[in-house]
């Protein structure tokens, strides 16, 4: 039997969240008996359920479902078409004192959220501002959506105000730590997306889909494919989840919005990546935070009932496989459970929602630890609020395009600088399970382990306890808390908390050199996708989702040169997926293959204005490429490390903007000279074949990637994980299955139509992974994190050279 998925045994199938169901069945009568009857006389529960109309509620009030229909009925097999009125409680819910379902937010945002039935229908109005409608009506669906969203927004803003007070409210001393929350967040509407209105469609005209569109600032809640009257908006946990995405976006851009920056950072950039997985886990946690008593499961009705895609948030959920429980050694840990769908545990799946379960489970476990009567003894409300503080602090710092990370920091504390911050967030240092865990740990430590402000039952939350909890989830992926950040001059001079290595029992860190090409005989170096219809469909999808930008004008529309011969041919758009292998005895996860420009050329013509065009490749990265006889730059006179900009042993401090420094594309070309062949720049090759600069893939303004250009946005690939002593294909496909690749596994390259057939290229990719021993730290500086500028170079990566010859 193989390790991993195939050894999972399904627990005896039980109704989803049985404990939750029982609890609610017990609580429901209690809730009703607590009724502070503001209702009018005619309110009663009958065989038909609560009479939910304007006569039975006070102004501004209505009724909404207190949970999703599966939980409220206690019937996991509930059929569509049931009478929703039966599930309403007599108690009324405050909706809004207005004639329309429009919400006002703090700091006078006149309309921060509104609900309509769908994209085509205007808002309906209630002239008496009463919001009680029959449970199966469209009006009810909108009120239900509005009521839940409104509660969530209030909770978020309340938490944010409390966090702001906790940090900036400490007059006259200022924050006790360098908070990522901007001091002037509220006057600048950084607590929202400016003054935008979050338009929500309760009966959105889409099937089997719920969606958050940050560009339009809309939430769309669709319906079931098979059963028209099964609406996603009937499931409060799905409403919370979708708002969770909005919350992630607001938190990520809290600093950017406060500063008024135009561009925004996203939590995730590919079909599958770890940032996107963290986003889904956090959105699930938003649901946990909003349900009371807390419900560690999401989507029993909208996702689970007819599609078997609900998700647990705690290990003791009956939906989970046997072997998982809340003991330290049985947590849903990284990376073992990265591809685990509890609904189909035998089938590995690379999907952000399921990978995100590790984050949601960890945050629920952290919350429950805060609530533990034998430790911090917090209420659920307080515990979830504290966890939200840590999440918001972490996202606000990691998503900061101003590169400050805090009003009190200097530029470069995070994400290099303002010019290249987005490149850092997308490619060079994307949010992954390591950086997120480290940021959360830093914030737990500074908020909960503060002797000046004992917040855990009069004491502090112990650092070792935190590390052990993280480790039980395989998330103790970092060696220090990196409080001093990553700035060029300051990033190694602050005092950092170090992780106590004895707490790392489950988390395994692997040396980067154990990531390599599959060494088995006959194994290929890469898989190639160059068939016209495949590539056309891929580009169609990637560009429609905004992941990639425009193709070069040198690549003909309709891709007529894509011939599907599994070779790289002139004029093609080609997808490649490297056949990488994990030579360690542990699972390797979050493997990233970078094909963006980096600092690996020594430029010769630095006396001229930029862009520099002449230079030689640096052979100083341990990949032994190219040999000095093959055209490598002469570094014999260089110090190592060097302080001279321009040297191979000097890494550009600002991603190539400074004098004498400039990035180079990953691909080089073999150039034949009279006596030998050597590896040279694409520009040198262009000159040697006398190709007009205007025929370069980027046009005459930039000839550095004249012949082979990585498609921006598809210039990196991610493999979720690779099993020990296996390649990626063997790790993701079931035995006997052929390997298929998703968008996130493929790097796309544009191949110039002007390349003479027979020309050979070498592309020097930088690779690494999240549970890497030596990709993020510098042992010479007490295991401190690498400074941000170092991610322009090659040291922090395992280099993989990929050679191919272009043929027709």
């Amino acid at each position: 039997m193989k390790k991993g998925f195939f050894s999972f045994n399904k627990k005896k199938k039980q109704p989803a969240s049985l404990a939750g169901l029982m609890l609610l069945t017990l609580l429901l009568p209690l809730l009703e008996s607590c009724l502070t009857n503001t209702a009018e006389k005619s309110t009663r529960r009958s065989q038909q359920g609560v009479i939910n109309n304007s006569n039975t509620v006070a102004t501004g009030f209505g009724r909404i479902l207190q949970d999703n229909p599966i939980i409220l009925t206690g019937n996991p097999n509930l059929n569509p078409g049931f009478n929703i009125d039966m599930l309403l409680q007599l108690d009324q819910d405050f909706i809004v004192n207005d004639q329309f379902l429009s919400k006002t937010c703090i700091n006078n945002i006149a309309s921060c959220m509104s609900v309509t039935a769908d994209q085509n229908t205007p808002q309906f109005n209630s002239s008496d501002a009463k919001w009680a409608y029959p449970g199966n009506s469209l009006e009810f669906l909108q009120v239900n959506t509005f009521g839940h969203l409104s509660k969530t927004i209030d909770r978020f803003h309340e938490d944010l105000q409390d966090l702001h007070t906790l940090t900036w409210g400490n007059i006259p001393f200022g924050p006790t730590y360098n908070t990522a929350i901007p001091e002037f967040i509220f006057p600048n509407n950084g607590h929202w997306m400016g003054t935008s209105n979050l338009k929500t469609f309760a009966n959105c005209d889409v099937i089997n889909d719920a969606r958050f569109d940050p560009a339009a600032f809309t939430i769309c809640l669709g319906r079931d494919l098979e059963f028209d009257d099964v609406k996603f908006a009937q499931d409060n946990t799905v409403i919370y989840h979708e708002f969770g995405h909005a919350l992630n976006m607001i938190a990520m851009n809290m600093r950017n919005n406060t500063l008024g920056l135009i561009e925004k950072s996203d939590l995730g950039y590919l079909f599958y990546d770890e940032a996107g997985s963290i986003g889904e886990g956090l959105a699930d946690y938003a649901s946990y935070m909003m349900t009371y008593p807390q419900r560690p499961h999401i989507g029993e009705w909208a996702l689970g009932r007819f599609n078997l895609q609900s998700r647990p948030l705690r290990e003791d959920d009956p939906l989970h496989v046997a072997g998982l429980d809340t003991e330290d050694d049985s947590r849903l840990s990284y990376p073992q459970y990265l591809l685990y769908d509890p609904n189909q545990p035998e089938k590995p799946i690379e999907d952000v929602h399921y990978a995100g379960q590790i984050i949601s489970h960890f945050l629920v476990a952290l919350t429950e630890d805060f609530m533990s009567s034998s430790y911090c003894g917090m209420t659920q409300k307080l515990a979830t609020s504290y966890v939200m503080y840590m999440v918001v602090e972490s996202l606000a710092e990691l998503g900061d395009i101003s590169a400050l990370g805090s009003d009190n920091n200097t530029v470069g504390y995070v994400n290099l600088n303002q010019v290249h911050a987005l490149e850092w967030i997308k490619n060079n240092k994307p949010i992954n399970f390591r950086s997120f865990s480290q940021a959360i740990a830093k914030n737990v430590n500074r908020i909960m382990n503060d002797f000046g402000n004992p917040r855990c039952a009069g004491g502090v939350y112990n650092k070792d306890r935190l590390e052990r909890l993280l480790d039980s989830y395989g998330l103790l992926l970092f060696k220090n808390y990196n409080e001093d950040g990553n700035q060029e001059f300051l990033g190694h001079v602050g005092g950092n908390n170090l992780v106590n290595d004895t707490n790392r029992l489950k988390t395994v860190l692997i040396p980067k050199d154990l990531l390599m090409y599959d060494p088995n005989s006959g194994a290929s170096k890469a898989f190639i996708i160059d068939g016209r219809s495949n590539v056309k469909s891929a580009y169609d999808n990637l560009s429609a989702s905004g992941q990639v930008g425009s193709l070069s004008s040198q690549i003909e529309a309709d891709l007529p040169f894509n011939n599907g011969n599994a070779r790289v041919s002139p004029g093609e758009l080609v997808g490649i997926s490297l056949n990488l292998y994990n030579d360690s005895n542990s699972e390797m996860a979050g493997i990233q293959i970078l094909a963006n420009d980096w600092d690996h050329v020594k430029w010769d013509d630095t006396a001229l204005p930029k862009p520099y065009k002449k230079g030689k490749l640096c052979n100083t990265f341990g990949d032994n490429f190219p040999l000095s006889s093959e055209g490598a730059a002469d570094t014999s006179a260089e110090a190592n490390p060097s302080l001279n900009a321009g040297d191979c042993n000097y890494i550009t401090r600002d991603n190539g903007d400074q004098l004498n420094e400039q990035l180079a594309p990953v691909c080089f070309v073999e150039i034949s000279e009279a006596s030998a062949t050597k590896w040279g720049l694409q520009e040198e090759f262009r000159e040697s074949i006398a190709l007009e600069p205007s025929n370069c893939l980027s046009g005459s303004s930039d000839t550095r990637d004249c012949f082979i250009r990585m498609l921006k946005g598809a210039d990196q690939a991610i493999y979720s994980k690779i099993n020990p002593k296996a390649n990626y294909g063997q790790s993701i496909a079931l035995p006997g299955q052929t390997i298929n690749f998703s968008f996130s596994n493929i790097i796309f390259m544009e191949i110039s139509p002007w390349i003479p057939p027979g020309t050979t290229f070498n592309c020097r990719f930088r690779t690494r992974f999240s549970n890497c021993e030596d990709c993020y730290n510098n042992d010479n500086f007490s295991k401190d994190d690498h400074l941000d500028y170092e991610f322009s170079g090659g040291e922090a990566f395992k280099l993989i050279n990929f050679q191919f010859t272009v043929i027709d």
Partner: protein
Amino acid sequence: MKKILFLSFIIMLLGGIITLQDQIDSLISDSQIIEEDSWTTYEKKEDKLVQSPSTSKELKKIGAEQTKKKSLIPKRSLSSVQMKPKNYKTYQGRRIIGHIKKDMNDINFINKVEKTWKDKLSEKLLQHRDRQAKLFIKSENSVIKIQNGSARYLEQVNITFLFKGDDSNSFKAFVDSETGEILNTWNRSIHDKVNVKAIKFTPDGTL
């Protein structure tokens, strides 16, 4: 020797701080200049690109609202006097992003502004499309991006695709003001689809 090292460290630090201050100066707030009727709809009909101002019905469908008039937000409230960021700098009526030069008149522009940028963009966005799609483009802002000592005219746009069956995708982008080329995108849609098989590709072979 140690003193020299320490001195050079201080000099580097000061140099760094000056550059940092420079960078902070380049911080800019969102001008949000909103153009009147700035949404345009594009569609491919019988292989021809057809464009029209977006109708209010279409805009509702993608959750967008037609803006009525040209306005400059944000309105400043009293408390916003405390705003930390400085006002954005402009040149030729466009907001400048990136390292701002002392004298903008000396700067080298690597492109120019052409009225056809939006048509070129729509052409590019629809040219490879197999699925039947309507494309909506809204101009949101015009900027100048300075990097590596050169300047580039850019347009900030909101792009929305509406596919058959009302599936839609939206995102924001910076686009070259001359060529319509997309340079950076953000705010992409997040879908929580159920029971939808991920699109996968079988390789054509190995190398």
